[in-house]
């Protein structure tokens, strides 16, 4: 882990593709020690002699020290501890951690416990995806990509869809969160999962409440899909943007699927398809180390995940490169369908409209998310209606001696891996997490570079580049926990352009109040 000392970056970066017989010019370029991020997203751009982008590096604040923090702690505490890492997806960490404990103690939860976990998880996914559509992704596309910046925020979304819809979103969210509190005690830090089961059964009354809200959630999801189709798909500017080359990458795609290769957020095998859509691998959670490795770059704290059998070939796309991605679009690409009827219809429509599977358009993540919202709500309704979910037997007590456990779920933002190694008393010796964003990190870096290349030419730096970069970034909805503070405006963003000798040329800084400064 670097501590802000001068870092040297060799000439290779996102742009390099190895061509037989040509050796790209290698230069040593030093990145200023201010590279250590303090709450800024930072983009370093290096120009060639013509003033065009040779390479761009994107860094964001990254949580550090997890392994050291976990060492010495009882593994049984991890579902509570890891849910505190991130205020956005606590339930995802909680669930992956709980499954890692099942694996650690080699214990299988009774059917009712499994169903309760998946029901709660579907509730969480419904809430998260709904919130994202209206308030996070919405400003980009519900309002429209060419709308003035002043309207591209959640107020602009409400202006477009109407106050009644806004109230509906808030009400739906509140009901979903009440269910999470009912099952887990708290919405922010659920107390639900235990190795071998869950902490609390659901009564018949609880179940009835889940059923009631689930029905409303399905209606709400259908309405959201309709809104998307009316407001977004009928806006040809936006459709053009979705399909534009600037936001297209042909990589591998990863997602969790059930035994019929349909998306499942809670459990199943992990499936990877190649850029042409064919199944490339399908493996169990505990085999992930054979398929996923992490690559370190000197200019970033983020570890870039890649497909181990293919090897790290740099920031490139295509079937030879180990770069892959996760999250809604990847999940739909990696699956053969969805397990619930309305969502399956929506799945088919998405691929029919966008030219078949797989879809490589990053911005199609927003559409895929709405399709998944419908699946999550339908799945919630299915599970809530299952009589077994109110069965009192919700725990199998573990008896095996712990040693190693791996748990994987699909977080809203992509595949999440928890891996613990313990001593025979269950005290953690080693721990590793691969969060959703690490799976996407390489592709995000490529997207940023592509955006920079499109908007910085002949040494001219257009301010629009900040918006393009942000739009790509937002489509991945990365989980960077630190950019969460309440002062108004955006995450401060700093873009520094260097000439071909590495000297600073232009800096664009977007402050927390949204104003852009050029120097």
């Amino acid at each position: 882990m670097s501590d802000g000392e001068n870092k040297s970056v060799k000439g290779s970066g996102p742009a390099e593709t190895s061509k037989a017989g040509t050796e790209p010019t290698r230069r040593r370029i030093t990145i200023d020690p201010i590279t250590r991020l303090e709450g800024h997203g930072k983009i370093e751009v290096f120009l060639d002699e013509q003033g065009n982008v040779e390479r761009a590096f994107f860094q964001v604040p990254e949580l550090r020290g997890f392994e050291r923090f976990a060492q010495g702690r009882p593994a049984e505490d991890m579902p509570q501890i890891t849910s505190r890492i991130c205020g956005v997806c606590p339930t995802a960490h909680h669930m992956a951690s709980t499954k890692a404990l099942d694996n650690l103690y080699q214990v299988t939860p009774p059917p009712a416990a499994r169903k309760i976990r998946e029901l709660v998880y579907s509730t969480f996914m419904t809430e998260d995806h709904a919130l994202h559509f209206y308030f996070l992704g919405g400003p980009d596309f519900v309002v429209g990509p060419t709308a003035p910046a002043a309207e591209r925020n959640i107020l602009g979304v409400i202006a477009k869809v109407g106050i009644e819809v806004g109230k509906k979103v808030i009400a739906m969210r509140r009901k979903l969160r009440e269910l999470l509190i009912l099952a887990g005690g708290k919405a922010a830090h659920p107390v639900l999962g235990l190795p071998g089961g869950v902490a609390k059964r659901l009564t018949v009354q609880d179940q009835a409440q889940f059923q009631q809200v689930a029905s409303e959630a399905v209606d709400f999801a259908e309405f959201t899909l309709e809104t998307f189709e009316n407001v977004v798909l009928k806006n040809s500017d936006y459709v053009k943007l979705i399909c534009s080359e600037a936001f297209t990458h042909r990589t591998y795609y990863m997602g969790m699927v059930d035994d019929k290769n349909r998306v499942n957020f809670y459990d199943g095998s992990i499936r990877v398809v190649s850029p042409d859509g064919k199944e490339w691998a399908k493996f169990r959670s505990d085999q992930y180390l054979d398929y996923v490795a992490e690559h370190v770059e000197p200019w970033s704290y983020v570890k870039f995940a890649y497909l181990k059998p293919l090897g790290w070939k740099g920031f490139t796309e295509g079937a030879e490169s180990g770069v892959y991605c996760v999250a809604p679009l990847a999940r739909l690409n990696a699956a053969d369908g969805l397990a619930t009827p309305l969502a399956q219809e929506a799945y088919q429509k998405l691929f029919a409209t966008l030219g078949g599977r797989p879809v490589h358009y990053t911005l199609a993540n927003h559409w895929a998310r709405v399709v998944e919202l419908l699946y999550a709500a339908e799945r919630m309704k299915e599970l809530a209606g299952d009589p077994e979910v109110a069965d009192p037997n919700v725990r199998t007590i573990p008896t095996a001696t712990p040693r190693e456990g791996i748990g994987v779920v699909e977080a809203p933002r992509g595949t999440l891996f928890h891996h613990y190694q313990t001593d025979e008393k269950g005290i953690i010796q080693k721990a590793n997490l691969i969060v959703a964003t690490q799976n996407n990190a390489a592709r995000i870096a490529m997207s940023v570079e592509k955006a920079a290349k499109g908007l910085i030419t002949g040494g001219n730096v257009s301010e629009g580049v900040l918006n393009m970069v942000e739009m790509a970034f937002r489509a991945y909805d990365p989980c960077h926990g630190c950019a969460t503070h309440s002062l108004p405006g955006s995450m401060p963003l700093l873009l520094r352009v260097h000439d071909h000798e590495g000297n600073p040329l232009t800096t664009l800084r977007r402050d927390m109040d949204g104003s852009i400064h050029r120097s």
Partner: protein
Amino acid sequence: MAFTVRVLCLGNELLADDAFGNAVAEQLRLLFPASLDVVETPVSGFALIDYLPNVSCLLVVDTVQTGKAAPGTIHLVREGDIKSVSGCSPHYVGLFETLELARKLLPSVPQEVIILAVEAADCTTLGGAMHPAVQAAVPVALDLVREITQRCAPVHSGREPQPSEAVRVSIEAVVARFGRERFVVI
């Protein structure tokens, strides 16, 4: 309606300086009567909408990383002093956007919103220690709560307190007491 105050302490106790909000909440519970409405939460952005209804004055305690001030610098912001925000946060909807939205969609939203945000050095090291300068800002937050709750307490002579003025005077008093150079007042 009686003038009520809620202190909303935002923080993640695992993340070094981001535990500032939690530290303030802990002290508030020890030092103030149980009747003080203190909320401690790790959520952010739009989820803060849950904490807006049914209170007249909301004091938000949080950390921030502007990169433009020394760690421990205390930023004081009143909602009325911030111009409308354009553009969306790459990840999270800011508090002020949430407030504007809440005013359109909820029946009850605070009239007074004040943010006390301390410049953090490190919010990314799990299990990391709090920077001493950030720790030193805890008493400032406590003092602001004391000032506001005292100045805005119901007056027995029947005069209603003027919240806006009371908040302004409270901020001035705290800044003067601790030294202007420690603050950025917007």
